């Protein structure tokens, strides 16, 4: 400051030139503006709600819902309360998300790797798929699958049989499935558990082999035992029921996937996979050329090079953007509402229409999707940590 401490202690000009003052002033102004806006909006909201006689409250969630839902994982009757109806919607959303993520990862990775194929046809098809699907709105694709593809399947009387163990008609798709819901969950849990255990055993084995050059036999045996146990559980323990077609049309046994679910799943998987394919492609391209050449010079076959050398390194570039693709998929499941699949958003809309409580329903919706996305991020971050370079 130019002035001495004995003179005026407050110099407006100096203060206006001081960046520290502006930093604080700017924050204070921002805060005031935001608070003013918020209080204006919330004040209006409060007044409007009071005028409609609907003060903000979640009590309505305990009232009976009174509408029926076409498909649900949990038991639900129309006179169950709203919160239970919303749980049904959440369950349906989760089945869509789980199926979507599994199939998208598979198809997207294949399509992404296919763009590196030496086979001209495979390469072009992969590019064509990405270029076509990414530039057409998802909702349009959803309608296309639902009305123009699955809607034109034959009626139950003339249903299509796939090798006699799966059936297709315009009401849905019938596939072999575990005898009961508990067994199905058990099978899925066993599969996931076995996969994680196998991954750890494999890493352990590799580590031992790298450090000592020999050994790792015990781990190999453990892997084989794990595989046999898993196969035993899945094949024998699941009490599989195979759908069988009836003379008069229709199907008994097995699991019926409704036309809405199948259409939503197909559209979501095809759309999201195109984006995943691009992520995978970018990831593989990011691996330096030297890695490829070094692996080839060791005499490894191109397929092995991709699997053992290039793809593991590409993963560290691939996984972070995959996280946001999975979140997009999760949020896009809300479009299934447009073809009347009773997922979270669809149930929430019905709830809003019946109770006239937009604000509360919106809060519930927002919280649900935020929590779902948060869970996905948690898992993906965990996965990300395991594939990052461990530098010594």
């Amino acid at each position, binding site marked *: 400051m130019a002035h001495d401490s004995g003179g005026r202690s407050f110099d407006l000009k100096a203060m206006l030139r001081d*960046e520290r003052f502006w*930093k604080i002033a*700017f*924050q204070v102004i*921002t*805060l005031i503006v*935001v608070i003013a806006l918020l209080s204006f*909006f*919330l004040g*209006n*909201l409060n*007044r*409007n709600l009071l*005028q409609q006689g609907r003060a903000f409250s979640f009590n309505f969630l305990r009232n009976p819902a009174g509408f029926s839902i076409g498909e649900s994982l949990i038991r639900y009757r129309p006179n169950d309360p709203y919160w239970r109806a919303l749980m049904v919607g959440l369950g349906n959303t989760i089945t869509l998300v789980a199926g979507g993520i599994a199939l998208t990862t598979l198809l997207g990775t294949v399509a992404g790797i296919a763009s*590196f*194929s*030496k*086979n*001209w*046809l*495979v390469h072009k*098809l992969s590019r064509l798929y990405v*270029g*076509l699907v*990414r*530039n*057409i*709105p*998802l*909702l*349009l694709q959803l*309608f*296309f699958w639902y*009305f*123009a593809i699955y809607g*034109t399947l034959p009626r139950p009387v003339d249903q299509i049989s796939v090798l006699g163990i799966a059936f297709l008609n315009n009401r849905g798709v019938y596939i072999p499935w575990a005898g009961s819901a508990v067994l199905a969950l058990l099978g899925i849990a066993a599969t996931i558990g076995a996969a994680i255990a196998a991954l750890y055993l494999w890493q352990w084995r590799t580590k031992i082999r790298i450090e000592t050059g020999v050994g790792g036999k015990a781990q190999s045996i453990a892997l084989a035992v794990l595989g046999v146990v898993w196969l035993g559980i899945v094949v024998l323990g699941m009490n599989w029921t195979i759908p069988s077609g009836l003379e008069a049309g229709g199907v008994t046994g097995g699991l019926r996937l409704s036309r809405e679910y199948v259409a939503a799943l197909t559209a979501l998987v095809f759309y999201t996979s195109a984006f995943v394919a691009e992520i995978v492609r970018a990831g593989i391209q990011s691996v330096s*050329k030297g890695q*490829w*050449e070094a692996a080839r010079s060791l005499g490894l076959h*191109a*397929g092995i090079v*991709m699997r053992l050398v290039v793809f593991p390194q590409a993963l560290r570039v691939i996984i972070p953007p995959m996280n946001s693709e999975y*979140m997009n998929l999760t*949020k896009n*499941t*809300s*479009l299934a*509402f*447009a073809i009347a699949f009773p997922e979270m*958003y669809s149930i*929430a*809309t019905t709830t809003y229409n019946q109770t006239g409580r*937009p*604000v509360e329903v*919106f809060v519930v*919706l*927002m919280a649900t*999707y*935020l929590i779902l*996305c948060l869970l996905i991020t948690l898992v993906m971050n965990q996965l990300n940590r395991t594939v990052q370079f461990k530098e010594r």
Partner: protein
Amino acid sequence: MTSVTPDSFSAPPDIVALGPVAWAKKNLFSDWFNSLLTIVLVLIFGWGIFRLGFWALTTAQWQVIPNNFGLFMTGTYPARLYPRIWALLAIVCGLAGLSWGVLGRNISTLFSRNVLIGLGVVCAFIVLFPPTRPSSLKLLPMVALVAGAAAGGRQLGRRFPGIGSLLSLAWFLSYFVALWLIGGGLGLTRVSTNDWGGLVLTLFTAVSGIVLCFPLGLLLALGRRSALPVVRWLSTIYIELVRGVPLVALLFMGQVMIPLFLPLGSRPDRILRAIIALALFSAAYLAENVRAGLQAVPRGQNEAAASLGLNTPTTLGLIVLPQALKIAIPAIVGQFISLFQDTTLLSIVGLAELLGIGRSILANPTYLGRYAEVYLFLAVIYWLFCYAMSLASRKLEEKLNTDH
């Protein structure tokens, strides 16, 4: 996929041109697995394409498209006011041609062989393709207008190199002219927004959304990168909350809740409410794209600007933002493309944009079950617009590329 080699990794292309047999042997039948793959794929897709062609030529009833072409383009817009839409199209075509000419003024031949072929294909398509027949006589002059304006723009651009900024201003003003022409007022008959529809509404909401979300997204990105904790926290909260919710929920609640948030009695128009929700949503995503661009600008740029004595706003405006935006162009255009696609969700909240019109036509008993025809037609329209945008972004990227 046995032989998977990234194409950028392969050796430089052979100079010797391969004969068709050698080419097929190298690219399709290099080993037993590739041969098998080729044969299986050819069988599957050959069958699929055959079935599709068979369906398109025999079973499909394409009449639904030409019969409703006016609806697809403008919704229930009064037919006697169509000249206003045509005038709007003429303005857009003229400006597009001018911009093309001015941007391409340094290319030796503006109408290169490829461009001429493209124009020829467009003209042939307009004349031959049945849906456009009623209006094809008006569409041909539009193509001529684009070409003529491009030629004129090139001369103009060479004479006055500074005309680019004037063009941006013209585009900006054309938006208000469009609003005036579509909606009426100021001497023109008013058209209720309930009659806005089809492609015109899709384009209008998309452009409005883009125009509104860009500045907001920019501010949010700067806010999130700011050194001031209050600003940073507010921006982060906004971005994360909005990105956590599906757009359709925001749109629907926007229709319901925006009136609740405003003083009693004020009720913005349905289309305006949709545009606001769309812009608020896209801004959060755009902010993240711009943030990535900001992060990619080296810190040295900031320090260099500071050492020249520039203050924070000038550093941002003159040094950092131009570089950040240049880096973020592909992501930003990607966001614009997805905003354009997201306009389809307006059909869910009851607006008759392109997809909404498609659905209402399909609800007409006359066109029962014509799903595949209508949706394929719409898919082609959306594809063309999105592809054109991504193509333009690639060109822009090349033009702004300063790496040597």
